[in-house]
């Protein structure tokens, strides 16, 4: 009997093959399309001999091969490789995320340690948290007057809340006993914060970071569709305007892969910081 992992891997590959097979069969009918054009296809102007709607997986693969071999090609504003576009997006996400860390972790620390501050700030946090980050975009564009910086601001504003809430919660729920250990050793407040509270709350803080970076990656695509210029969101929108559906599908897969990698990095970091009671 093969191990669980091997069996799961075989099943995974099987699903992929089935999916791609079905896709291939559905999108590569011999001859011209005979079905009625749907409203959407009409809208897209696809009916008129553009070779059918959905590209077949083979088409996507060959495009992916081309795109990946030119991943870091830079031929001007409308001709950047996918690698470059992803780097712009990741760069914005990391910049916004880093700013949010700088603000959210210390502030969360204060909120977690002071019940008064917690109560005082909680209503604002509760109101601000559910606001869609994109709703801030016009305000950001108006005040910052710069599209790229506005996108970073949007990332900042969406990634701050999970970290703030998690840091405050993690700090507030540090065990009394551990704090008492620090007190009986007469540790200074700073040392207590650094050597007792921070490691104790680290796993919770990191969970917040993981949620934040996940949301940031969701939001950056939409934000870049709005602000344009560079980035994977802009790439998707641009290819849609070119009606290059194969490129759109390829970009979607790449967004998924990069998002997974970002999460994996933080998951790995969390692994180091986790402790078992």
């Amino acid at each position, binding site marked *: 009997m093969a191990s669980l992992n091997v069996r799961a891997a075989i099943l995974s590959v099987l699903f992929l093959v089935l999916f791609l097979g079905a896709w291939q069969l559905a999108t590569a009918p011999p001859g011209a399309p005979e079905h009625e054009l749907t409203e959407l296809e009409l809208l897209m102007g696809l009916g008129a001999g553009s070779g059918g709607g959905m590209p077949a997986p083979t088409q996507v693969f060959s495009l992916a091969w081309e795109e990946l071999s030119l991943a870091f090609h830079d031929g001007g504003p409308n001709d950047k490789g996918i690698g470059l576009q992803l780097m712009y997006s990741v760069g914005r996400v990391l910049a916004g995320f880093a700013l949010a860390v700088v603000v959210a972790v210390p502030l969360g620390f204060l909120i977690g340690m002071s019940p008064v501050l917690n109560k005082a700030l909680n209503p604002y946090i509760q109101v601000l948290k559910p606001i869609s980050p994109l709703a801030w975009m016009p305000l950001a564009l108006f005040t910052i007057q710069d599209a790229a910086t506005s996108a970073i601001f949007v990332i900042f504003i969406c990634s701050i809340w999970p970290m703030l809430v998690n840091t405050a919660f993690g700090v507030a729920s540090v*065990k009394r*006993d*551990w704090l*008492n*250990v620090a*007190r*009986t*050793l*007469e*540790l200074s407040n700073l*040392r207590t914060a650094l*050597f*007792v509270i921070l*490691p*104790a709350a*680290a796993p919770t803080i990191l969970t917040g970071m993981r949620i934040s970076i996940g949301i940031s990656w969701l939001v950056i695509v939409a934000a870049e569709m709005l602000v344009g210029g560079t980035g994977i969101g802009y790439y998707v929108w641009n290819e849609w305007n070119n009606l290059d559906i194969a490129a759109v599908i390829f970009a979607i897969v790449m967004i998924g892969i990069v998002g997974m990698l970002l999460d994996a990095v933080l998951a790995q970091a969390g692994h180091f*910081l986790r*402790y*078992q*009671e």
Partner: protein
Amino acid sequence: MSLHFIEVENLARRFPQPGRKPPVTVFEHVNFNIEKGEFICIIGHSGCGKSTILNVLAGLDSPSEGEFVMDGKEVSGPSRDRGVIFQNHSLLPWRSALGNVSFAVGARWPEWSRKKVREHSRSYLEMVGLANAENKKPSELSGGMRQRVGIARAFAIEPKLLLMDEPFGALDALTRGVIQEELLQIWGRTHQTVFMITHDVDEAILLADRVLLMTNGPDARIAESVVIDIPRPRDRSAIHQHPEYYTIRNHLVDFLITRSKTLQGRVGGPGQQPRTVNPVKGTGVPERGSTPRVVGGTG
């Protein structure tokens, strides 16, 4: 002017109640002294306020009334003079066994080099028999081993007073016995002053020079200070055969069964020391309640 190493005077702790109810007095009129190098155990029913007293001595809680003088100085707030072994070991789970001890040692002597801190910490881990588990995290240690790391940590900072809150409460009887013996050995070497809470009468007789008996709460008082003069070194496996063992044990058990209730809120007063009792010599023994009874087996 203090004649004793530790003097606790008229200690009281009251907790406010919700609403307009008057505050509840956990204990009051608590007076006792401890000499340097003495091993004191305190026994009383659950909820009578033992942990509260210990927290006050540790400086983690402040009394509603009264004061606590150590070495001629009034004490307020926690300090490294007093080491605490908490009820549930309270090791930092992200640090190794050695890391936990050296964290305390490094805080106690900030001027020491890393190497010196490590060596000092290691010697105390060796003392509790954990030399080859120094790199294990608390989660990888058994309950008894964790408690031993806690003991090593508390002894390693060489406090003037060691406070222990039911340190062996969570351990099975066998492990308990082993660690009690280790504790006796370490104490025999270091002669630290110890104040320890326990629920276990046999443990108190094995370890203590004196046992303080606390009546039930609320309004708990320390009613008696029972002298245990079974000679040291004491051997856990043989102490039951000591002719005085059951006289002492019966006295303590009788207190817990009857007098802790009947004396509740009725003994002591401002400045009044608890009655010193020597059950063997028969001094200070109250008239009622000390009828000899044979209590078989273990508590």
